[in-house]
């Protein structure tokens, strides 16, 4: 996968929930993002996302464990959906920045 921050160097949640007000980085997660909520819903049904741990952050973005990405992409491709994959073994370089929301 090729990325990892040494979490032991940073305070964990128990130590930091009150004092620490800095950013919290969650590692080992991948993002699926779509410009259309309905398309995302339809896509996720096709990818059998109900079987995979996931968390929605809006109606257009869902985060899943990185370990599940290849399976999700394979299922999508099997259904004829070819997402743009950024980074990782299947990935390509991102050609343009996503707009901030």
């Amino acid at each position, binding site marked *: *996968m*090729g*990325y990892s*921050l*040494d*979490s032991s*160097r*940073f305070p*964990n*949640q*128990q130590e930091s*929930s009150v004092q*620490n*007000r*800095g*950013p*919290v*980085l*969650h*590692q*080992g*997660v*991948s*993002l*699926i*993002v*779509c*410009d*259309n909520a309905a*398309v*995302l819903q339809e*896509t996720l049904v096709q990818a059998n996302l109900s079987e995979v*741990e*996931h*968390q929605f*952050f*809006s109606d257009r*973005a869902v*985060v899943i*464990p*990185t370990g599940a*990405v290849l399976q999700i992409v394979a299922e999508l*491709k099997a259904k*004829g*959906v*070819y*997402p*743009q*994959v*950024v*980074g*990782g073994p*299947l*990935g*390509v370089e*991102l050609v343009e*920045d*996503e707009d*901030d*929301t």
Partner: protein
Amino acid sequence: MIREPKREGGLTPEAFRKLIDVDYDPAARRVLAAAVQSTESDLDMITERFFGEEFAKKYDSLTGIARHAMLYVVAQDGLVRGENLRRDMLLDGFGDTSPTLCNLINEGLFIVLPNPGELELDVPRLVETGTVLQRDLAIGLHIVETFKELSKVVLAEETADIDGVEQITSSSTDTLEMNLLHASTKLLHAPLKLNRDGAPHRRGLAKLAREIVFPSTFNEAGPEVDVNKIEILDYMVFLFAMGCQLGMLTNDGEQLQGAAAGMDAYFASSISKRNRMLGDAFKGLRQWNEADSFAAEKVEDLGSSLTAARGETLIGARGYVFSILRRSRFTSWKLEDAVESLCALMDPPFLQKALDKAQTEVPVWVGAFLRRGLYWIGAVERGRTEEGPVIRFSKRGREMLGLNVKDTPAPVDKSMVIQPNFELMIFLDSTDVTLLHRIYRVAERVKLSDRVAVFKLTPESVQRGYSMGENAAAIIQFLRDNAAVEVPESVTFQLHDWERIHKRLVVHHSGYLVRHHDPDALDMWLGQVKHDTKCNVVRLGPSTAYLSENDEVLLDKLLTRARGSVINIEEPNGVIEFVGPLLATVDPLQADVITMWELSRIAHEVEDAPPRLRQFAFDVALLKMRWPQETLQKAVAFLEPRSKGGLPASQRILLQSMLEAPPTAAIHTHMTVIQLQDEFTADLFDDVEEFQEFVAQRLGPMAFSVDSSKIDDLRERMIELGFKL
């Protein structure tokens, strides 16, 4: 190291005299002396007679193979390597000439020259041991001059190109590459299942086989193809084995799948490099055996397992015959029988040894190697004449052997026609497979006939190409560069539109989810990240963003400066804090994806949670639905590492009582506890028979509970035994 000067031409009297004087041992001189009817010790006489008219008549009187051998040496200006002479005569259909050549040596007509550094040449012993042909053979210059013209005339007739060849070749390297490209592309997107024995699943095989161009045909096989036919199944297995050997297919024992990296490595290479790769792949072919293939009479005889290394035992023999053919350098048509003899007879013991493990005979394997293996990779072309079947190396075949390694330029003609209906017509005869490989990335082949392949750009094929790194602008440029006509407007518009659709769904494979309680602080921090690192920021909400791409070192610095924290999804933290019976709060910014996902499945969210926290009430029904088997154990396994300080015992008991049988307890009142001084005394106490009626239960190593109403009686008895109470 001192190198000896290269030998040139036949022998002069001086060279001959020096040879027999310095290099020959007495036995060799004796043979020559006998041949020229001279005394062994008189070197001058031997030389004089060797170059005399009487002895020259012996050359003139030679007939048959011996005469041809002499003329071959004359044609080479009187000097030739023994093995090369034998090889060339094999190739020209004279069969194995070793005995004849040895006779000519024994009769003094062919003079054996020592190898560099060789002294005391014992020619009779070399003849006896069969190693004499591993040396140069020479004749006198006077013989060369005498027979020069004759040799030109005779050998011109003998070795002339065979006339009247009707070419029957249709199996070419181009077709093999097209098949490899098509099969690996198809299997890249839809792997082929293998049966338990490693043979390809017939239904999937049939689907693929209909689009393959088989040897002796020119068009794709079509729906009528029968994969139970021996030649069809065999070629498909050969094709898969070649694909695996070239790294464009992978085989995990359960399925056969295309490998994009291997395909790119092969199809992006120059023709010369591809030829070498093909030659090497064929020599090292493991999952296919040409001898079995050629000998099989029915499909049951044919091994079709792609997991069995049936061809491994042939690797040594293939390499050996490749080297023989490379050295023979023949370019014109030769009788198949002669080429077979060449391969089989150059070094029969070595070849048989190489084939021993394969349990096949030399003639059988050589025939299969030439007529099946080399033919199927397009290394040889086949034809027929009145004299019998003939064979020659194709241009690419010569390059596979390592000959003519000059790079063949790729075709420069524009071979593509693009139609407004998104079809691409490709004229294969003026197309390089590298170009086809690019087309395969974005288009589906819909038809192949008469050396014209028709591809179609479809939404799926183009988006699949986009997912492999293509983009609309690059594809349009590629089409413009290679099309003989203008790229239709409808095609360029649609390629851009499909790209827009493709980009609607983006999967960021590697990165970090960033969360912050303070949206303004998050803004500032993300601004620094954008400025200082190559991370790509996707904002997901006021307090959440995703950092795609990674620059760990800089990110680490920025996080340290901001006093941030890191949560690894694989190392759950104590984010769940119990605040009541099966009621817990969670800081959502600190909770990982798995924790939040599971909580949403096993608990109801409570609305009036403390600020910035979320509160969950665990539901027994949901827990049982989530983990129908071993509910308690799985719930504890989930909660234990995620609960602050571990799962509290009270919550653990509560879960047990609600998910399984409640723990039982008995409350005993009116009991008195007796504690002895040590375990030994307690054991003695336990063994006193008369105490049994007083003791209710032993409570531990040193204590017993006793009914309070009997305590006075027990005290009395204990005092009687001397206990100090």
